[in-house]
C-alpha cells in the first residue's frame, strides 16, 4: 500500500544501477565509477532469486569502466578480472574468455595464452560439464594463438630458407604448433556457429600441409550445412579456396551463386559477372546480367567504375548481337522508375564527369542505351567528352545514336 514508495535497499540499488548505465551510455566514466562505488555493497546481499545478480552487473559495468577510463591501466583491469573470476563459479569461463579478449586487444598475446591454458585446466564438479561450450571456445582460442605461433615460425623458416640455411629446430616447433592448433580448431568448427577466423586459419594449415581434401570438406560443411547459420563469408572462403585450387569455372560459379542470393551487393559480384558473361551457356549469361544489375541497385556501388564497365560491356554486347534484348527489358522493367534519378541525374552527370571520366563513360553508355540519346546524362557526358576531343566519347556518341531504336524497344 503506502509502503510501495518506501525507499529501501533494493530500490536504492536499482536506481544506482540505472545511473551507472546512463553514465556508461554517455561515456562519462568518472561518473559511472562514482555510482559503481556505491553499488558494490550489494555484493553482500543474497540475490540468488534474481535473474541477473549484482556480481554480474559489477563485472560487466566495472570492466567497461576500467577499459575506458583514462586513469585505469591494464594491470588494474587484469586485477579486477581476477577478482571477478572468484565471484561467480557459473560464470568463471565466460569471465576468463572476456579477459582474454581484452588482453588480445591490448596486444598481450602471451598473457592471453597463459590465461587460456589456465582456464583450460579448470575443473569444478558439474560446472565443468555445464560450461562445456565456453570450454570449447577457450580451447578454440588457444588453438588460434597456436596458429599464430605456427605462422610466425613459418615466416622465420621461409626467411631462413631464402638465406640458404635450413633450420630443423624451427621446423619442429612449427609442426608442434600445427598439431596443437589443428586439434582445437577442428573441434570448434564442428559445432554450428559463425567461426570465420577459425575456419580460415584451419584451412590455411591444411593447405600448407597439403591436405586439400580435408580443407575442401571443411569449407563445404561450413558453407552448405544447413545447421550452420547463413554466412556469406563461408561462401567467399570456399570460392577463394576453389580458385586457389584452380577448379573449373563451373564449381566457382556454383560457389558464388549462393553468395549472390544472400548478398547481392558483395564485391565478388564483379568476378561473378565476369565469369558468367564469358560462359557459353545462355542461362549463365542471363544470370550475369541479373547479377550486375542487382549489384548496382546498391548505393555503395554507384561510383564503382569496374561494375559499370561490366554492365556496359554486357549491354553493348547484347545490343550489337541484337539477341536477347528482352533480357535487358526484363531487368530494366523494375528499375526504370527509379534508376534515372538514382544514377543518371544531371547532377551526377556533372559530378561523375569532373571526378572520374571513365566512370562517366561507362555510365553514359548504359544510360544511352537504356534511356535513349535524349537522356540528360548521356547528352551531358557525351557533349563534354566530345568537347574535350576524347576519341572514345565520340565513338560512344556514334554508337548510341546508331542503336537508338533499341531504346525504344526496351522502354516500350
Amino acid at each position, binding site marked *: 500500500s503506502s509502503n510501495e514508495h518506501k525507499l529501501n535497499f*533494493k530500490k536504492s540499488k536499482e*536506481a544506482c544501477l540505472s545511473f551507472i548505465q546512463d553514465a556508461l551510455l554517455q561515456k562519462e566514466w568518472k561518473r559511472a565509477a*562514482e555510482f559503481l562505488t556505491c553499488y558494490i555493497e550489494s555484493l553482500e546481499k543474497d540475490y540468488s532469486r534474481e535473474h541477473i545478480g549484482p556480481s554480474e552487473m559489477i563485472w560487466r559495468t566495472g570492466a567497461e569502466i*576500467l577499459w575506458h577510463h583514462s586513469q*585505469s591501466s591494464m594491470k588494474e583491469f587484469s586485477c579486477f578480472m581476477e577478482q571477478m573470476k572468484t565471484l561467480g563459479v557459473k560464470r568463471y569461463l565466460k569471465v576468463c574468455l572476456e579477459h582474454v579478449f581484452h588482453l588480445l586487444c591490448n596486444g598481450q598475446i602471451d598473457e592471453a595464452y597463459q590465461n587460456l591454458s589456465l582456464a583450460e585446466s579448470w575443473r569444478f564438479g558439474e560446472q565443468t560439464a555445464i560450461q562445456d561450450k565456453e570450454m570449447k571456445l577457450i580451447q578454440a582460442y588457444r588453438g588460434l594463438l597456436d596458429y599464430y605461433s605456427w605462422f610466425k615460425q613459418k615466416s622465420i623458416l621461409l626467411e631462413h630458407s631464402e638465406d640458404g640455411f635450413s633450420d630443423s629446430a624451427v621446423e619442429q616447433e612449427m609442426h608442434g604448433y600445427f598439431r596443437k592448433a589443428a586439434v582445437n580448431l577442428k573441434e570448434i568448427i564442428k559445432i554450428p556457429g559463425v567461426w570465420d577466423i577459425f575456419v580460415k586459419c584451419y584451412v590455411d594449415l591444411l593447405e600448407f600441409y597439403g591436405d586439400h581434401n580435408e580443407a575442401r570438406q571443411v569449407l563445404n560443411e561450413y558453407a552448405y550445412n544447413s545447421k550452420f547459420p547463413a554466412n556469406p563469408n563461408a561462401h567467399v572462403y570456399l570460392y577463394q579456396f576453389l580458385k586457389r585450387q584452380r577448379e573449373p569455372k563451373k564449381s566457382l560459379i556454383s560457389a558464388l551463386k549462393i553468395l549472390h542470393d544472400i548478398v547481392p551487393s558483395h564485391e565478388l559480384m564483379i568476378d561473378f559477372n565476369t565469369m558468367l558473361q564469358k560462359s557459353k551457356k545462355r542461362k549463365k549469361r542471363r544470370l550475369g546480367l541479373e547479377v550486375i544489375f542487382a549489384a548496382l541497385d546498391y548505393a555503395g556501388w554507384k561510383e564503382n567504375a569496374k561494375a559499370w564497365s561490366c554492365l556496359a560491356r554486357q549491354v553493348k554486347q547484347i545490343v550489337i548481337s541484337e539477341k536477347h534484348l528482352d533480357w535487358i527489358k526484363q531487368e530494366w522493367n523494375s528499375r526504370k522508375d527509379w534508376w534515372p534519378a538514382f544514377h543518371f541525374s544531371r547532377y551526377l552527370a556533372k559530378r561523375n564527369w569532373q571526378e572520374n571520366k571513365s566512370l562517366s563513360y561507362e555510365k553514359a553508355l548504359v544510360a544511352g542505351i537504356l534511356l535513349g540519346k535524349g537522356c540528360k546524362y548521356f547528352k551531358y557526358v557525351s557533349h563534354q567528352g566530345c568537347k574535350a576531343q576524347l576519341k572514345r566519347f565520340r565513338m560512344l556518341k556514334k554508337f548510341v545514336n546508331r542503336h537508338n531504336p533499341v531504346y525504344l524497344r526496351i522502354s516500350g
Partner: protein
Amino acid sequence: RDFNERCAQCSEVNWGLTDGGRFYCRSCHNVTERTREVVNTDFITNSRVQTISKGSRKQEKNGGGSEWYICEGFQLVLKKQVEALEALGVSSQMKDEILCNFWRCYLQKSKQAYCKRPAGKAVKALSVCESSTDVDSDPERPSLLHLLSLSESEGDLQTDCSFASSVSKVSESTSVYSGSVDGSLYLMKSQKEKLRMTMPMTLSFCYMTLLWMREPITLSELLRYVVEGHIPYLNVFQHFPEKMKLCGLDLKIFCVESWPVYEEVFNKMHELAAFLDLPRFPDITESCFLHPDMLCMKYLMEANLPDELHNWTCRVVKKIGIGEVDFLTLVPGNKSTRKVKYDVLAAAVIVVVLKLLFLLDDHYEWLLSEHAEERNKNNTEDGPYFEFKKWYEVVKHSLDVQQKKLDEERAKYLWRCEKPLFYSVKNKAKVLKRRQMVVNLQNQFGKLSGSVQRAEKPNPSSFQLSWSEKNTDGSCFHRHSLKGILQEKRGLLTAMNPDYWLCTVKLCNEKLCGHLAHYKEVEFPQSYHFVLGLFSFLLRVQPSYIHDEVCMIEHKLFNKKLYKKLKYNTVLRK
C-alpha cells in the same frame, strides 16, 4: 535471596541477582525475566546495560560477549537518537526526563521490565552457547525460518541462502541464533499484544516526546534529519558496546534496510500514546511552532510565495476551526477525532489557498498571471505584483535541480556499515571474505571517481529551499503583492477568481481504505499536481498524502454548500 523456585534449566535453587534486578541461576547461568520490583524511580539510562555487562565472568566463553536483552539495545538506540536531537538544539529535558519516563512506562506496560511477574513462563531463550540437545528437545520451539518470516520483511535478510541452509544443520552444530538473550522470543511475540518494539518505533518515541515538549521539529523534518544522517537510525547498532554481540536474529530486529515513512511512524506514535495510557498532551496554542499559522508562514517562505498569502491561510484556518487548541492537541486513545498531521495540514492549507486565489485549473492561473503582468508594466510605485508564471518558472527550476540531487543521493546511499554482520559462526568466514572484496572494489573504483568526492554531510537545515531577497534577478517572491490578482469589492480585497473546484465530492471512509481520497495524477490539473509535488518534496511524503488533507479541508470549508447539495441530491433520487 527469597526466591525459592527451582531453576528451570538445572533444577537447582541457587539464585543470584544481577545489578539490573534480574534473577540468575548461579549454577547454569540461566537468566530469568523475573525481576525484583524496582522501587527507586531514578532512572539512569545506561544502568541496565552496564550492570549486565558486569555480569558473570563465565560468559567469557561467548567470546567476550555478555548477555543482553533486545530492549536494552533499543534503549541504547533511543539514547543515541536523543543525544543527536540535543545537538540539533532540542532541550536536554528530552533526554533527562521525558523520553526516559516514556520508555520506562513502555517497558512496564509491555512487561519487559519493572514489573512483578513477566507474562509467560521463564524465558528459555536461545542464547549464544545453546547446546544442541536443548535445541532439539523443545518441540514448541519454532523453526528458524518461521521466526524469520514472522517479522515484517525488511529487505532481503530472509533470503540469505547460507543462513537458511544452516537451519537444517542446527542439530549437528551449535548455530548462533542471536547474540541477545531474547532475540528469538522477540520475533515470536505476536504483534497485536504489547506493541513490540521496532526500529521505526524508536522514531515514534522521539516524535512523541518532541510533540509532548512542543519542540519546533515536525515529523517530516525529523524523518528528513534521519535520512540525512543527523539522527542515528541506519546501522546505529554499530555503536553498541563490544560486549553486546549482535548476530543471528538480532540482525532482523536492528538492521533496517529501508527508510521509514511518515505514515508508519505517525500511526505507530498514536498507537504508542494510547498503549501507554498517556493523558492529554500539552496544549498546542497559537504561539506554538506546530500551529498551522506558524507552519504556514514557514512553508510559504520555503515555497517562495508572497508573505501576503499568510493572511489568507490564517483566514482559512480560522474558518474551519483547525487552529483551535482542542483540535490540535493530542488526546491519546480518543478515536473519534482525526489525528493531526501538523506539517501536512499546513501544506494542505496553502494548497487550498492557492486554489482559492488561482483556481489552478491549468487555465485561469495563467490568465491571471498575464493580467498581473500587464498591471505590472504600469506599476511604478508599489512593489511588484505577484505573477504566477514567473513564480512557477523559478520554483520549478529550483525544484528540478533539488529533486535531481535528491534522486542521485538516494541512489548513492551506502547502507552497509563498517561492522560486518553475520548470522552464524559458519557464515562468518564467508562474510568477512566478501567484505574484504567489497572494500577492495570500492577502493578501486572510488579512486576512479575523479574529483567528485562524496560530499560532506550537509549541515542540518530546517529549510531545504531558500530564496534571498538580495537577488536582483527577481527570483524571490516574498515581498510581492497580491494586488495583481485581487479586486476591491465593497471596500474589501477579494479574489478575482469566483470559482473553486473540489478535489472530491465525497470523502472515502478512512477506516475502510485508509485514505480520504485516491489521488491519480492524470485526473487533476498539472498546476495542482505541481503544487502538490512541491510540498511533497519539502515534506518528503507522497502527493496523495497531502491531497487527502486538502480534501479534508475543502470539505470543512464548503461544508454547508456540500450539505445542501447532498440533501438536494437525495431529494432528487426520491
